[in-house]
């Protein structure tokens, strides 16, 4: 019983974080067909902002909010630097610019801050744990689950009920038609990048809350997770991204519990091989989503 609870909480908290990461990536991909390699660096930006404002007397929640806002700003910067100049050109060009932008941000952190990990301020609650049905559970897992539920709910509301959400879904389905019907393209694209940055920022804080430090290469692992989750779930479907996040968490947690110590080192290799297999079976991912129209 203890074991089951521990397992479920692990899957839910990891899955929640993974789902949010994947959602931010798919949101941009759905509308723009842009695989955003600089997405992981948004998490890095949030982390370093938290580190830099760490010395100030502000309450922690305000610092976290500043970090999230900075991640959103970095998201918008991705739009202006990596996407707008090349968006009319090939998919590959867009891909490579986002890769270059990611390297740019990473090396800027190396150059201007430090190659070594820096600590971030965290409230005490992140290191406490509570007893749930006799199992000690870290509070940060609970926080992650709550944050994921809240954000996913908010996101669903935004996409289903608001004008912006409807316009974004229209743009993802058929960008040209959406434009003809008067959806302002640039506004939609900027909003997508901003929301993507918001999700990355929140996930970044939760992610860094597990480690306690931030380093220039910190974005790689979340980026890989987000990639994999949305490839499993389906690159075109927002529900798919969430599903993919939870499936990936299930796979990871199961491997953690079942693989022997020797094989555990190769966990990433197993996970990624599984992803390749899933893609071979269903190249579109598990959920198909709307047929994509042409990007402008």
């Amino acid at each position: 019983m203890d074991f089951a609870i521990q397992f479920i909480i692990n899957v839910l908290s990891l899955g929640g974080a993974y789902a949010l990461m994947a959602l931010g990536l798919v949101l941009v991909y759905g509308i723009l067909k842009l695989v955003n390699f600089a997405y992981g660096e948004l998490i890095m930006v949030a982390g370093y902002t938290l580190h830099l404002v760490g010395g100030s007397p502000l309450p922690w929640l305000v610092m976290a909010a500043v970090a999230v806002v900075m991640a959103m700003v970095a998201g918008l910067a991705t739009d202006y630097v990596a996407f707008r100049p090349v968006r009319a050109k090939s998919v590959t060009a867009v891909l490579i610019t986002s890769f270059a932008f990611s390297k740019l941000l990473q090396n800027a952190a190396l150059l201007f801050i430090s190659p070594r990990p820096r600590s971030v301020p965290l409230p005490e609650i992140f290191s406490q744990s509570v007893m749930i049905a006799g199992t000690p559970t870290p509070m940060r897992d609970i926080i992650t689950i709550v944050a994921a539920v809240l954000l996913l709910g908010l996101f669903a509301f935004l996409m289903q009920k608001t004008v912006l959400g409807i316009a974004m879904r229209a743009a993802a389905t058929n960008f040209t038609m959406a434009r003809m019907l008067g959806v302002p393209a640039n506004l939609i694209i900027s909003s997508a990048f901003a929301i993507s940055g918001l999700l990355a920022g929140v996930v970044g804080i939760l992610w860094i809350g597990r480690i306690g430090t931030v380093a220039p290469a910190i974005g790689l692992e979340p980026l890989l997770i987000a990639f994999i989750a949305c490839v499993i779930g389906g690159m075109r479907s927002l529900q798919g991204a969430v599903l993919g996040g939870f499936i990936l968490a299930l796979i990871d947690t199961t491997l953690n519990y079942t693989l022997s110590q020797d094989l555990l080192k190769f966990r990433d290799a197993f996970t990624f091989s599984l992803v390749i297999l899933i893609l071979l079976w269903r190249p579109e991912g598990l959920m198909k989503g709307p047929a994509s129209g042409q990007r402008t």
Partner: protein
Amino acid sequence: MQRNLLTFLILGALIVAAALLAEFMGIRLYERIATTMFVSMILVLGLQVFMGNSGILSFAHIGFMGVGAYTSAVLSIPDRMKGMALPDLYPILENVQLSPYLTILIGGLVAALVAAALSYPLMRLSDAAAVITSFALLVVLHTVLTHWSAVTNGPRTLFGIPEATSLWLACGVALAALIGAMAFKESRAGQLLRASRDDEVAAAAIGVNITRLRWVGFILAALFAGIGGALWGHFVTSFSPRAFYLKETFLILSMLVIGGANTVTGAVIGTLIVTFAYEALRSVEAGINEAGFMPQQVIGLTEIVLALAMIAVLSLRPGGLFPAREIGTLLTLKRKTGGKSP
């Protein structure tokens, strides 16, 4: 044909000129830079073979470089070093000690075999899914290299690899890679592959087996990468798996993208330009560090400039410096139009 010959002559001359220059400057550092540049060129040409002809971006390339480097190293480390360098090596391999020149070739072949075994199904994918799976493949290869302690000494540095790569060996292999890349581009397979790059549906409609052709291109690219990796291993004589990951991928990719991924000319010129810029920036970085202008060590400046250059090239000239035509074609075209105009 004449155009291709002209292209080969010009590019070959550039390569040989670079080697001669490095040799006669008589500065050891320049020789090392030139050798590294030829290794990069082999890798970039390999990436061009796949990416240029199929139009699909591959991130896995550097992984195959690692496979080649480790294969060649394990087979050629001298007996007396093996116990120290690779304490957990499988008994079958313990007494193997082949000539590095042979193992460089074997390294390439093993990389090609690994690519052949892993990649056939992946070639069905296009666009974003293809890129992400190739990224996944790089992570898989990197994870295996980092943790397969018996063969790679784990994440630690592998040492004791015999030195075999000289400036002229690297130069010669770069010339061979140039011929290989050009021959593949002009071969039937290469032409059909390029047709599929320009219009996948139309190419499939005339009966092109796209998956198979991409596979052939991918294997050839891995062969180049494996040989390049093995050459590099026998040049630096000690390395760790960290050498075969994203930083290296970024460098090779920037060379190809800045030069122009669709042409062999782009691959060669891109390598020359980026190597030159990279070394110049590195010495600037070292200069700043020595003079102590900044409170801490300056690192990452080189990559920042490279990233900016890539973004600039892609927004101003998305196909790179040589987007569509080889240099031989460009020159003959110019001469013709020059003759016509009064």
